[in-house]
């Protein structure tokens, strides 16, 4: 356990995979920037890899005041123990007050290992973070400026606010795509601390025999418009219409779990709690009833158009425009209207 340092910095552990910096670290820097400013402390980013100096510069441009850049050949490819050892060592040495990780497969593997070693609290999959006070029931002890770790639970049916009053650092993993990324500022200056952690071959207990990167078929997170289909689409053939509408708008095609499970579209297209979280300018939900698990992944879209034959579908509760009707009639009308524009 490390002693709580109420003046400690805010930290973001930025993830890089085989030389590519993951977006979620940059998203976390924008939120971390706000939290650090509110607390009156600095924002530090940690990045680990075989060669990370270029990443370090980028992290400064995205808001870090300081970057701890750990370079070691044993950090070239992710595996739990050497990465955990480096993070645990840095946290024990610097004692930040808040540590944020992306809730990616890597972050969800690494953060609990680190939190357990430090006997610190960790909240998974946060969708929002804030600073606020807390009075502990029972002792009535009042804490100022704690991290509110806000996350969906129970399959997205409830939103819980979690605090960690005593056993610091306050640690959280944060979902990808829920925090908007700042524009990089190339004139920003920050301190870059290059270091070589002490790691030996025994720290890398696993042998990675083979690693295959399978590119996702679609970049939903990067799409401004998404046309998504659910069980109500009815068939793979009917999905054709959704592709046509997406093409007419220069958008991508998404899907609910029901459509993926029916085999109408590949899993990479899945939006929602077990898929990706998106926040596009426009989300057209076709034949999607709007179960909470799906809404959790798309309700932050700026505009939502819902097309459904069931006027009582919950999707209409989050939609800005609702059309009760058959997609085979409605979608061609939409395509027609888009093509006739100007």
């Amino acid at each position, binding site marked *: 356990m490390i002693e709580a340092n109420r003046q400690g910095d805010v930290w973001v552990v930025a993830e890089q995979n085989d030389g590519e910096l993951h977006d979620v670290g940059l998203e976390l820097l924008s939120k971390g920037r706000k939290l650090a400013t509110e607390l009156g402390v600095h924002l530090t980013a940690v990045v680990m890899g075989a060669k990370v100096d270029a990443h370090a510069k980028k992290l400064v441009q995205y808001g870090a005041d300081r970057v701890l850049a750990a370079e070691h050949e044993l950090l070239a490819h992710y595996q739990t123990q050497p990465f955990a050892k480096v993070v645990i060592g840095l946290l024990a040495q610097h004692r930040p007050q808040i540590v944020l990780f992306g809730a990616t*497969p890597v972050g969800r593997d690494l953060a609990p290992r680190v939190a357990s070693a430090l006997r610190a609290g960790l909240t*998974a999959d946060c969708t929002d973070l804030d600073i606020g006070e807390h009075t502990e029931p029972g002792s009535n002890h009042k804490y100022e400026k704690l991290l509110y770790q806000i996350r969906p639970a129970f399959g997205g049916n409830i939103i*819980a606010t979690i605090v960690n009053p005593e056993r610091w650092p306050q640690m959280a993993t944060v979902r990808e795509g829920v925090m908007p990324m700042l524009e990089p500022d190339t004139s920003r200056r920050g301190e870059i601390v290059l270091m070589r952690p002490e790691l030996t071959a025994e720290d890398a207990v696993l042998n990675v025999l083979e690693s295959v990167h399978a590119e996702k078929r679609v970049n939903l997170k990067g799409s401004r418009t998404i046309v998504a289909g659910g069980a109500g689409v009815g068939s793979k053939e009917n999905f054709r219409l959704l592709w046509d509408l997406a093409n007419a708008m220069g958008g991508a095609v998404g899907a609910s779990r029901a459509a993926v499970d029916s085999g109408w579209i590949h899993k990479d297209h899945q939006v929602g709690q077990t898929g990706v979280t998106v926040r596009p300018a426009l989300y057209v939900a076709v034949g999607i009833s709007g179960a909470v698990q799906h809404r959790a992944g798309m309700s932050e879209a700026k505009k939502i158009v819902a097309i459904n034959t069931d006027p009582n579908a919950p999707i209409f509760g*989050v939609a800005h425009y609702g059309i009760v009707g058959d997609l085979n009639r409605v979608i061609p009308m939409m395509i027609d209207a888009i093509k006739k524009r100007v």
Partner: protein
Amino acid sequence: MAYHLVVLVKQVPDTKRITGEAMREDGTVNRAALPAIFNPEDLHALELALELRDRYGGRVTVISMGPPQACEVLRDSLERGADDAILLTDRRAAASDTLATSYILSCAIRTVARQTPVDLVLCGRQAIDGDTAQVPPQTAEKLGWPQITYVESVEEVAGRRLRAKRNTGAGWERVEGPLPCLVTVTDGGPHPRPASAKRIMAVKRARCRAEIAQAVAAEMPAATPEAQKAEVEKRAAALQARGFLIKQWTLDDIQADLAWCGRDGSPTKVKRIQSVILKGSGFKKIEATGDAIATMVHELIEDHTIG
């Protein structure tokens, strides 16, 4: 070479079937209104353990932490082929967060291992009530063992080495690691076998002590506490003799330090719970006619949503 495989399983409310009745006015969840099920990914972990035992020999021990009702998932595990089942139940473990839970589970695994050394612990990647996926890596850390997360298959266990294929989210990798270790299994893991009819007949009478006590209290409400206790002992001994007594452990049985269990042992506290409210502001109903849809599209173009 035979292996001792331990599977951690959890009984969870079926969050996919949540309805209005399951949500209380204050936004909290009425767990009693939801059917309790075997956490789906834990079934894949159990199946992987059973396959490894069938391939290499050894034993599968299943552990579940929860209230006495959690014996349901233990019976289910026995019906599918597990050799041994242990219920960890103790009121002092209530309100444990993931860190306290992992500490308790690590104490239980150490206790099991004192009898027969454990080679591999298998768990589902995450439970559908919390979806945190934190307990397995924290348990591995507490044991000081390596972890291999998101496993879809174990290609081979040879001597003290294991080779597995894991889903990295952006592809997959094959890794090799030492035993003992802990693996988490995703729904891409092997398909769970059904319970065998023969085993169902054998296992359906299996009970833990808490369940026997509940049955005795219901059947002999007028009996003195001593008489009830004697009856519980009698029934437990009878089940034990036939190998149908599900072991029931408390925190004392696993020598857990109470300072690290339950509410006191949990660094994280729930400050507030809100039910999810549908927001949809400025909802417009659009008729399914060409004109109305053209007007909507025009609005979306005007406010730069499209284009």
